[in-house]
């Protein structure tokens, strides 16, 4: 049950900041679940980090992993 955290505008897209997803053995599977639940997310720019490290492409996920969905930064 991976913990997913949405940041920035994606908290509005998901309607929540934190959600747990069951049955995703990889980032790719998690993405399918999330796009099924929140179809508009495909229109947004974002990067994914697993346990505070950015990832490119796929990665196996374990129960305790924390996955962050982060739109382009806008600090300052």
């Amino acid at each position, binding site marked *: 049950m991976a913990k997913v*955290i949405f*940041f*920035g*505008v994606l*908290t*509005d897209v998901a309607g929540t900041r934190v959600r747990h997803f069951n049955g995703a053995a990889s980032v790719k599977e998690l993405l399918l679940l999330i796009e099924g639940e929140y179809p508009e997310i495909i229109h947004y720019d974002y990067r994914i*980090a697993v346990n*505070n490290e950015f990832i490119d492409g796929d990665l196996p996920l374990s129960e305790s992993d924390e996955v*962050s969905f*982060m*739109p*382009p*930064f*806008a*600090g*300052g």
Partner: protein
Amino acid sequence: MGCLVDGPLTNELIGSLASMLREDKSCGGHSSFMGMVRADEEGGRTVRAIEYSAHGPMAEKSAAEISSEIKAQFDDVREVTIVHSTGIVEAGELSLLVLVSAGHRRQAMEACARTVELVKERLPVWKKEIYSDNTHNWRRNEPL
């Protein structure tokens, strides 16, 4: 101190950083940049505040990396301080402070400007503008 603070940057915080400047007597120049929330007009509405949110652990890591990178790139730089607000910051309040101390003025100023760009680029922080009519809008940073 971590790089994230809750709410606007206060005079007390700025004053305590100013006192710390004097600790290293080999520094001849301190350069700072302070970012303030502007009361911009956006289609008839005025920005009342910005609500900042951040990825805490990744922001701290990113600030530490920026600081090391700047010190590696500018050999005269002794200290790099980055402080960013989270939560609500009203128009006219400060949300970002970058402070760079160096032996001489040139690197202090160049490194400060570079640090500000890296903060904009790499600090995982997001901003939601809140308008006078209580509507809001997630903003992206304009390019420099």
